């Protein structure tokens, strides 16, 4: 039962095949049994979950049709939750309990979803392997010696290991798509502004976006129907009307024009990933799509531009963690400066500190034009590349990551780690939607394919992904019971 999709569970709940309390209990038991090995959850909230489940069962009995009603869900620990700790993977917020719910959390609560707990993540979402978490790294359920990807590694691993039915994640440079790819699950990063950022702890405000990590494209669509839409509390949330994301899932792909960026198939791409993506493209052709090559000439600038813009915004966003009002404060500060210095030195991990320093440097007097301004110009060039490509194609398809999940502790060079996101970062810089879905294996490790769409074309991405999942079984593959140990 735990391996079922949201769509399937929803049916089972409604036909009284299983109750939400039973389902919730089963997930909680499995979490209790394996979390020590996978480290996917930072916090579980058993009591609250069972209370929500029992309420959901009543509503189901009353005939409430909401598809998420009674569905056990996990939230990335970046979303503020009233009464449940929100750590953002940091010592700085180790014991922080938010006095309010994030918009995405309150929307899902209202829809009747059951919160199982909060998932592990790279500290302040800064990382591509989940190794920067103050609470230890998450293990990849396909092979516990491998990373799950990051920063939403806890959410992706929890979905893959059936420790929840579906999870929320956030993506600033690939943090939903890359862990989805490494863990063999579906992960959608919506267009910038599609999902409210209120209550989502900021990393890089102009890039951050929340989205679903799920067992199928259809499930992602079901979750999007709840979380997408404008929010008066987020000035950057889009007023563009939302659609019913489940409505067009079954549209035929006949005539679909797929662009394949030549820059995504160059040096650095591993052979098994390349082969898997090429085979997937053949599947699309069988479904009636046509494939053409597209050019994203400035893609190589995306990582450097990102590592100016994102740290710059982060350096300011993280200034509030100063030990004054909440969160960690160093012991016995001798004066104000000592309190600032030691609170922030002791409270932040090394990757967070590195990015604060990069960002502070990039914004400094005399460097602003050379770094921040220039990065913003590159951002426009990258957006222009996509705009040009989308004049001839409907979606762009390529690998999500250059390779499958790498070994824990293997990548210690930060720049090498930053290059992990070479295919995903440009999508954030351009504010576009992107989805990663499983397309095969390299050895026993999953491979992910990224589908990129025009701004607010989430429904199209979900349709393309869903059609692929109708003719393939990759998304149904499950890690072994012993997690490859």
């Amino acid at each position, binding site marked *: 039962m735990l391996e079922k999709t949201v769509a399937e569970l929803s049916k089972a709940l409604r036909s009284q095949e299983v109750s939400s309390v039973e389902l919730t209990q089963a997930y909680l038991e499995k979490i209790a049994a394996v979390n020590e090995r996978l480290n996917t959850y930072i916090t579980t909230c058993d009591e609250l979950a069972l209370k929500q489940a029992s309420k959901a069962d009543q509503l189901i009995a009353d005939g409430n049709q909401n598809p998420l009603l009674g569905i056990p869900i996990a939230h990335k620990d970046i979303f503020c939750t009233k009464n449940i700790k929100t750590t953002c993977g940091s010592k700085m917020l180790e014991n922080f309990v938010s006095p309010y719910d994030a918009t995405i959390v309150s929307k899902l609560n209202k829809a009747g979803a059951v919160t199982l707990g909060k998932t592990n993540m790279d500290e302040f979402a800064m990382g591509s392997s989940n190794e920067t978490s103050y609470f230890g790294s998450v293990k990849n359920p396909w092979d516990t010696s491998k990373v799950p990807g990051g920063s939403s590694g806890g959410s992706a691993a929890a979905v893959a290991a059936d420790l929840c039915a579906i999870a929320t994640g956030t993506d600033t440079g690939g943090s939903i798509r890359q862990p989805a790819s490494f863990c063999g699950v579906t992960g959608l990063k919506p267009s910038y502004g599609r999902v409210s950022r*209120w209550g989502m702890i900021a990393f890089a405000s102009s890039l951050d976006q929340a989205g679903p990590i799920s067992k199928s494209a259809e499930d992602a669509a079901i979750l999007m129907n709840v979380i997408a839409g404008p929010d008066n509390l987020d000035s950057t949330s889009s007023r563009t009307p939302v659609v019913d994301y489940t409505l067009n899932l079954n549209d035929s792909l006949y005539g679909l024009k797929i662009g394949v960026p030549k820059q995504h198939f160059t040096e650095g791409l591993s052979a098994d990933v390349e082969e898997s993506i090429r085979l997937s493209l053949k599947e699309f052709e069988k479904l009636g799509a046509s494939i053409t090559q597209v050019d994203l000439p400035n893609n190589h600038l995306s990582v450097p531009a990102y590592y100016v813009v994102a740290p710059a915004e982060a350096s300011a966003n993280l200034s509030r963690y100063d030990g004054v009002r909440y969160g960690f404060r160093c012991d016995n500060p001798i004066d104000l400066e000592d309190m600032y210095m030691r609170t922030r030195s002791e409270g932040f991990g090394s990757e967070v500190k590195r990015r604060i320093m990069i960002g502070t440097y990039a914004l400094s007097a005399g460097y602003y034009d050379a770094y921040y301004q220039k990065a913003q110009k590159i951002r426009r060039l990258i957006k222009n590349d996509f705009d040009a490509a989308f004049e001839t194609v409907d979606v762009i398809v390529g690998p999500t990551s250059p390779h499958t999940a790498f070994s824990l502790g293997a990548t210690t060079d930060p720049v090498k780690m930053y290059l992990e996101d070479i295919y995903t970062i440009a999508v954030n810089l351009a504010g576009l939607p992107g989805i990663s879905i499983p397309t095969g294996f390299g050895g026993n490790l999953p491979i992910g394919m990224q589908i990129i769409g025009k701004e607010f074309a989430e429904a199209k991405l979900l349709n393309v992904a869903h059609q692929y999942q109708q003719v393939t079984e990759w998304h149904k593959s499950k890690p072994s019971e012993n997690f490859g140990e």
Partner: protein
Amino acid sequence: MVWESVIGLEVHVSLSTASKLFSGTASNFGADPNTQANVFDLAMPGTLPVLNEEALKMAVKFGLAIGAQIGKHSVFDRKNYFYPDLPKGYQVTQLDFPTVGKGSISITLEDGSEKVIGITRAHIEENAGKSLHDEFSNESGIDLNRAGEPLLEIVSEPEITSAKEAVAYLKKLHSIVRYLDISDAIMAQGSMRCDVNVSIRKQGENKLGTRTEIKNINSFRFVEKAINSETERQQEIIEDGGSITQETRRYDSTKDITTSMRSKEIANDYRYFPEPDLLPVKIDESYIKSIEQELPELPDIKKDRFMTEYQLSTYDSGVLTSSLEIADYYEIVVKHCQDSKLAANWVTGNLLAMLNQLELDLASSPVRAEDLGCLISRIKDKTISGKIAKTVFDTLINSNLSVDEVIEQKGLKQVTDTAAIEELVMQVIDENPDQVIQLREGKEQVLGYLVGQAMKLSQGKANPSQVSQLLKLKIQ
């Protein structure tokens, strides 16, 4: 050596919106610490700003009132620095694209001439909270009630050349802001604050001297004194062969000196960049037009109207329109007495002197405009003389009686009864034979003395012109 001061002012006014600049919290003066701070004001993780459109509207109003270019595309920026009363670790302000661009205001100098002072820009920004150092021993408290309040920072061109001009400029700004009703602008409460940039140079020289900035001066009087004290200090240094250090100073009003706060060389690098949590603010011509239509009659226009409509002098019109409260008060007085000149004399004279003496503002004046209007009417209809009116006015200050009740109760009604006046006049003639002879011999000025004697006898109640007429009749 003749020195010339070059002065520029940065004035912060708190906009009197119902809620803060980026959150829905109220921002009333004097609330208990931290009772006006929500999750955003506390910079809780995950919170985001939403622009208070009322604040934007007020800024645009101000811009239109000073004839400024209105920024149709304004951008908020983050100004980064650490301080415990700055919860986010950055202040949101407007750096390159302020809502209000170049404009100007006109001030009246002591010799009555007008001078135009350029305003470089006015931008919207959020206030910081307040550190409380005295309430706790060995620790500091933070009150975030004020944090996030909307401020408008108005930056002048360095076109002010004396302390008196600076005060005139400030008073004019104060007046405009009050006319627009966009701020309480009470300096003592901090809802209007002033930073002064001062440098000096030899008269006739074009190059600007090194300037110092005097921070946070909280009264008009202190602005004047601080500038005088600082220019003197700078003169002494330069005349002694020294040079001025560019720095921030504070004014110590008890010693009447400025002292150094910090040197600019080690000043913060604020690492400004556009606030990514807010979209650029776009406003169009129709929005500006609609605000333009809401603008009230502004001081300069009102002054011109007072000169023509009420036939007042430039000076009187200036005094009467210097604040909206005085202007409104004056117009009520006129409405009740139908004599604009008498009304102007009373308001600019007795009324303002009385308020000044009692240290009251107009809103708490013990004499209401309606009463003053009535009082002047009683002079006009000859119920009382001008002199008696002053007695009535003084009585009104300390009583709740109406003008007519005071006149009635104190028996101050003017004597216009001819028989009674004739009696008085005869008595004066009898008692002053010498003066009567002098008058008969043509010494006209003696008449005034005799009238005075008659008035004294009547305890001021006799109608002086009647007395005068009758005296002349009887004596000649």
